[in-house]
């Protein structure tokens, strides 16, 4: 299962990569920005993607909209990851055609399981 994690924070990218890697069936790739993610999915199509919401330049929702423009990614399950765990915002993200939201700080040990259950 191919998992893409997009976050501008290098430390969190690294931790997320390790955490998701705890699931032996996950093949994890990360990208530091929306642009980098769009470039990556040209050659590597993920089965599920996690986007940080607040990123400089292109933010998570904008990245999602751009990905939906591509036929290959039209049905890609997307999970938002956010440190701004305001309820109203969580609901807004849920409406944006995502399968779920994970609040930061996430539990590294159960992150993979959470992603599995949301993407199913």
């Amino acid at each position: 299962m191919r998992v893409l994690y997009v976050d501008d924070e290098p430390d969190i990218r690294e931790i997320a990569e390790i955490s998701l890697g705890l699931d032996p069936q996950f093949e994890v790739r990360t990208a530091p920005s929306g642009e980098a993610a769009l470039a990556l999915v040209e050659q590597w199509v993920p089965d599920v993607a996690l986007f940080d919401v607040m990123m400089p330049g292109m933010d998570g929702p904008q990245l999602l909209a751009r990905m939906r423009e591509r036929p290959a990614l039209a049905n890609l399950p997307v999970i938002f990851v956010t440190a701004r765990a305001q309820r109203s915002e969580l609901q807004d993200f849920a409406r944006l055609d995502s399968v779920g939201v994970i609040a930061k700080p996430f539990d590294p040990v159960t992150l993979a399981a959470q992603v599995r259950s949301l993407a199913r």
Partner: protein
Amino acid sequence: MFGLSMALSSEAMPVQTKSRSQSAIRATAAAFALLLIPAIFGGLYFLMQAEFAQVRELRSTTEQAIATRDDLQQLLIAHIDAETAVRGYVITQNPDFLQPYNASLERRERLFQILRQRLDPDLQPQLAALQQVSDTRWENLRANLADVRAGRVDAARRRTASGAGKALMDDIRDRIARIDRTALDKIQGLSAAVTGSRAGVEKAVTTLMIGLGLLLLVVAVVTGRSLHQRREALARVKRLADRQKAMFEGAVDPMLLLDSEGRILRMNPSVSRMFGYEEHELLHRHNTVLMESRFTLEQSMAWLASVGEAGAHGAGRRQEFTGRCKDGSTFETEIAISRFISDGEHQYVVAIRDITDRKRAEKMKNEFVSTVSHELRTPLTSIGGSLGLLSAGAVGPLNEKAQRLVTIAHSNCERLIRLINDILDIEKIESGKMEFDHRRMQVAPLVQRTASAMRGFAEQHRVRIAVDLPTVPESVVGDPDRLEQLLTNLMSNAIKHSPEGAQVEVSVRRDGDMTRIEVADRGAGIPLDFRKRIFGKFAMADASDSRAKGGTGLGLSIVREIAQHHGGDVGFADREGGGTIFFVTIPRIEDNLPERPERNGKHRLPKVLHVDDDLDCLNVVSSAFAERAEIVSCGSLDQAHELVASQRFAAAIIDIDMHSEDGLRLIPQLREAQPNVPILLFTALDSGYTDTGADKVLVKSRASIGDLVSETMRLIAASKRKAA
């Protein structure tokens, strides 16, 4: 203004009670005087009448006595005249001398007759004796006359000279004088008696007059004092009114006095300063002129009607409005409004405060809090993630000391995260920004879910969790996430404060109109000095407690806020045999609805249009349908027409007669756009809506929200079947 009315009542009250007892005394005195004064006048009248009667009697008696004396004198003169006449005739034999004799004879008869009638009975014997002597005398005279006529002049002269006639005359004079004296004595006696009784009357009259004078004096004093008190009371009222006026006029915040319909009766100068209107431009206009239009006149009046009276409990209301100045500029205000009764009519006193600065500060604070939460969580994600992975052995085993240190770092990192979350929660709740997603829900699954989530934490503390649920399901309207947060806080407190090996008992039961959830522990109990502030922020029994138990001191404060947002409350009690029971009460509802399907992201909920001008009704219906239908709430017909033109609905719920707008006008448009859409009228008006074109009419007073939900879902299912 609350303060003002309190000041008024606190000063006025003792005066009232005091004057009440005094006025009772005054009333009694007045009644007494009212009874006494006519009595005195009656007595006076009676005495005067008696006195007048006596005077009248005295006068008539006196007149009579004088007449009697006169008659007696006349009688004497008649005798003297007769004697003189007879003597002249005897000497001269001239019959002319006899003329007075004849007249006297006649007079004597008449006078005796009068005297017999007039004289008192006790004088009658004397009168009779007098008449006898008089008769004898007259016999004597007649004998002389007879002798002269018969030519025996000498015999007559001898008889006359004998002195017998003179002796009789003297006797007659003497008797008349005696009778006269007796009559005179009687007058004098009567006069003396009258004089005596008059003295008595005078004394009585004087006494009564003095009494009357005293009474009048008392009345004057009492009235004077009452007038004085009234003057004082008036002065006090005036002072209060002046003070009140000064407070009203001098208040820095604009203040308005509104009539029962919201028109401006009075305003203070600050209103002009803030809004730019002159007083004459605003008086008698509706207060909505000062607001950025948000409400119709009807809504504004309905809102006014819901404002409580000012009082000890401060039942008035605070509300934020956007104010509008004369020049059209707007600014944020907060108004404090309360109702009072003046001249039998409701009036409202409104204080307006410019909260532009506060709003700006709030916005800055919110942005700050939001930024801080993000900026803190981002590094914490890295720290917590790293420590979590290390501690879980994700990157290989650590030696014992390293494992211990990583565990300490990890648990403190988690505590820091909890603290941030709690602070943000409290901040959100207090600023009214915490969103509650109320829905109909059962309590038992919530308790079970929370209990099983807490089991791991309980095992760490070597504490067991026992759950006791009622056989009949208990349902409430609530936010499942927030109630779980509440229960988690209570259970984690109970677990942390339990001794090893103890049991935390969670139970649910019905308590009148409330559902009561209890969490009981066997901890050390709550110190007495901590009980009052236990629900306060950063409240912990002692400073070392937080380190020992890893709490933030915000948990119970959040619990209380959440419970109160659900219309319930939280409390605690000592537990028999040691420990504490914390309980939460939440208003329960009758659950007559089937369980709803769990939320499923892929499953589309039917979209239902709900048109109602009552915001509360919109909210209630929306939460009642949660998870079963997506409610599109709409507060006006115009908006509803737009929605119907632009969207498709599975059903529509319409309130008829949204004040002036008749909801029925929407039905033809709906039918034209979507011929098969089920339409339900949900209305407060209970008057035969038979031919409306709606599929179902439910009257608000008779049908519950549950009925509305099940009927709507039934109609949606029926229309789907029909379409298929």
